[in-house]
């Protein structure tokens, strides 16, 4: 199985054995599985010519042989509609979908199948680097097993190739869970991550952005086009959007808030008055509260329509007519309650809560102490203001090195 680096730069001979130039690149379509080489690029005195695969007899490390005598000038300058393996992919960064990380392409493995030369996989090993350096013997001495390639069907070349040239940019990356997309983005510079987020659907982008560290989020947001950034912020829960905006420079934050939908901007604005790392700053204020005088069936209907996020649906906080926190109802309590019973009859009154000014540590401590997934936040008059979920304080609950990390030189 030849590697791209062993093919490029070798002489190209026509059917008469006459040298017509040097192999400069291989072109493949972007959308075929294990794409076959569709054309080769032969360089002759600085000019490049694309020769269709049909005219190629073989491409091997010894050289490239053509099927017939060739008048090079008949073949045009290659266009940009195909992927250039050498120019576009070699040495660039792509995503290893299976390993969930960014990798640099040290070499590309090709395999001859039924007269085609097909792309098999990507080599990101040190052995690949050594091969490029002409020091393969070192790898041979040190090697214990065959070098492992990343299967071509398990990579996303989106970060390397200009997105207008791909039919579905990031089509493999976007199918990963948001946390995994976040992990991949963490390995990118803010500008690179911004390019990915702009290409993804807003909801996926919002979920992925939420997975990044605060500083990285701010930098990525700064690197995105303002309109795109605002669209993504619109899709985030208000508390997360507020967190992100809190780290962005004032002027830019104002600009983004003006571009966001008025409803979301207002919500975010109301959260930004609270200090970061207090219950007020952490909470989601757009929550589903239940009046104590409601009946179970109607609440269930309302809940179905409101469709709160998954980590906020387990607890329904019950308030009186002036908005004061009265009790809590678990989703289970609601479902098993007789349809026409009053909420006040199924709720539990001894509900733990935190106040707006309580510190993040205090919030985390109470969540852990009472074994809760979420806790309500109230003001000094015990009016319900929002809720904090365990996700909002995960950095205090889980070890630091489990969390997504930015790829930065410092801090």
């Amino acid at each position, binding site marked *: 199985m030849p590697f791209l680096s062993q093919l490029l730069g070798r002489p190209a001979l026509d059917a008469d054995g006459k040298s017509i130039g040097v192999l400069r690149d291989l072109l493949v379509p972007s959308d075929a599985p294990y794409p076959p080489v569709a054309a080769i690029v032969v360089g002759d005195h600085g000019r490049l010519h694309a020769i269709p695969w049909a005219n190629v007899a073989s491409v091997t490390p010894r050289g490239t042989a053509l099927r017939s005598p060739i008048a090079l000038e008949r073949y045009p300058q290659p266009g940009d509609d195909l992927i250039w393996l050498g120019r576009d992919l070699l040495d660039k960064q792509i995503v290893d979908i299976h390993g969930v990380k960014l990798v640099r392409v040290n070499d590309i493995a090709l395999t001859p199948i039924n007269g085609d030369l097909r792309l098999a996989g990507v080599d990101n090993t040190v052995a690949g680097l050594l091969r490029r350096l002409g020091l393969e013997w070192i790898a041979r001495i040190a090697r214990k097993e065959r070098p492992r390639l990343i299967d071509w069907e398990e990579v996303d070349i989106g970060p390397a190739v200009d997105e207008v040239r791909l039919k579905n940019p990031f089509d493999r990356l976007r199918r990963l869970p948001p946390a995994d997309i976040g992990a991949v983005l963490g390995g990118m510079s*803010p500008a690179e991550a911004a390019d990915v987020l702009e290409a993804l659907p807003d909801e996926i982008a919002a979920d992925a952005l939420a997975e990044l560290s605060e500083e990285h989020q701010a930098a990525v947001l700064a690197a995105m086009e303002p309109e795109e950034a605002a669209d993504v912020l619109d899709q985030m829960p208000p508390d997360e959007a507020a967190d992100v905006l809190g780290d962005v420079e004032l002027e830019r934050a104002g600009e983004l808030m003006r571009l966001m939908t008025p409803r979301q901007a207002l919500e975010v604005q109301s959260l930004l008055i609270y200090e970061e790392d207090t219950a007020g700053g952490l909470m989601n204020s757009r929550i589903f509260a239940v009046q104590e005088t409601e009946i179970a069936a109607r609440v269930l209907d309302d809940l179905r329509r409101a469709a709160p996020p998954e980590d906020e649906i387990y607890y329904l906080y019950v308030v009186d007519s002036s908005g004061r926190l009265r009790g809590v109802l678990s989703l289970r309590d609601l479902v098993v309650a007789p349809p026409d019973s009053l909420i006040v009859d199924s709720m539990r009154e001894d509900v733990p809560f935190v106040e707006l000014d309580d510190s993040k540590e205090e919030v985390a401590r109470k969540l852990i102490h009472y074994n809760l997934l979420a806790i309500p936040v109230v003001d000094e008059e015990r009016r319900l203001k929002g809720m904090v979920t365990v996700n909002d304080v995960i950095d205090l609950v889980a070890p630091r090195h489990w969390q997504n990390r930015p790829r930065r030189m410092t801090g």
Partner: protein
Amino acid sequence: MSNLFRRPLGAPLAGMKRLGLLRRWALPLRLAPFLAVMGPGMLTGIVDDDPSGITGYSLAGVHFGYDLLWAVVVATVALAIIAEIAARMGAVTGKGLGELIRERFGVRITAFALLVLFIANAATTVSEFAGIAGASEIFGVSPYITVPLAALLIFTVVVRGTYRRVEKVLLIGALVSFSYVITAFLAGPDWGDVARSSVVPQFHLTLPYLTLLIGLIGTTITPWQQFYLQSSVVDKGLGEREYPMERIDVYAGSAAAGIIAFFIIVTTAATLHANAQPADTVTDVGKALEPLAGDFAAKLFAIALLNAGLLGAAVLPLTTAYAICGAFGWERSINAPLREAPVFFGLFGGLLLIGTVVVLIPGAPLLVLMFLPNVVGGILLPVILILMLKLVTDRHIMGDWVSTPKGTLIAWLVTGAIIVVSVVYAVIAVLDALGLVGG
């Protein structure tokens, strides 16, 4: 409807405690206001005046008085031109210099360029530790205690992810260097002489002069700087939109580095050179600050040296490890646990170890170790500059931000001049070694 929502946003923003700038202002109130407005360019400029810089400029003043002042002016302008290129490449491509070199030139040239970077940076790291050792000698503490301690401290701080905070303290500490500006005035130099020497080149075709000249260029413009600056721009997410502001930051940073360099030379020229005092040891060089600090001069110098040494001893290995891992695709976050980024921490720790061990060789001449990397850096610099210029003139990479023909010409002239000085220096050095010219 939407207007209703829009109106309140202006004013209430000011009341929001959490919005970035406000919070960012809260810290400087406790520390120092300039940190808030400091961008990557200013940061790089400050780190530029590290122990090798302080030594290089001091020795220039000690041995040749004001004769090398013109070189500082020229080198500062050259620094601004080159740093602008690095910052622009960062803002336009969103990639570090090592990565760009890899993507454009392939594995071989990258391996060569990064080997050059590694050698230059290893030498500079040694000089940072030499600065720490020199400072510790002035304070009468054995370097065998302080140097390993400093290395351990830096390693711990970086591995534990608290480097950012420590860096802020060290950057404020770097303000000590400004004591040279005050001292220069107190020393009462002949300002007419200073002004004349700043614009009229004074040449001596001797090995010591050329050594100091190339050392001066090599400490003002360094390979690591370009990597560090470009990565800082990239990591902040600064793009084409912010670039006009960033350019000002870069020029301001270069100017700050140049101003300190200028006054170090004026100070040492007006004190040590004027009084024909020797400068054979670190303590001797520190005596230049006597007009300001009196008997405390050497200690003030030691503080500047220690601070700059710690800062440089962290920045140099970090930049090196970061650039190499980026170019070759190895994990390189300092927030990663050690075992997940073995190459990154291996390079980082390895450079700290090299610095520590070399400085602690019994009888190691600290002043020489502080100065030598300037010469190494000066000679290796053209390799990096040529690659940078090839990148920044590539329309494929830079798009509309590609250098103008005029800008390109100026940058090539700067690079060419540095190469000429390097070659002349190498020739003279060889002739000198053969005993053909008198030192």
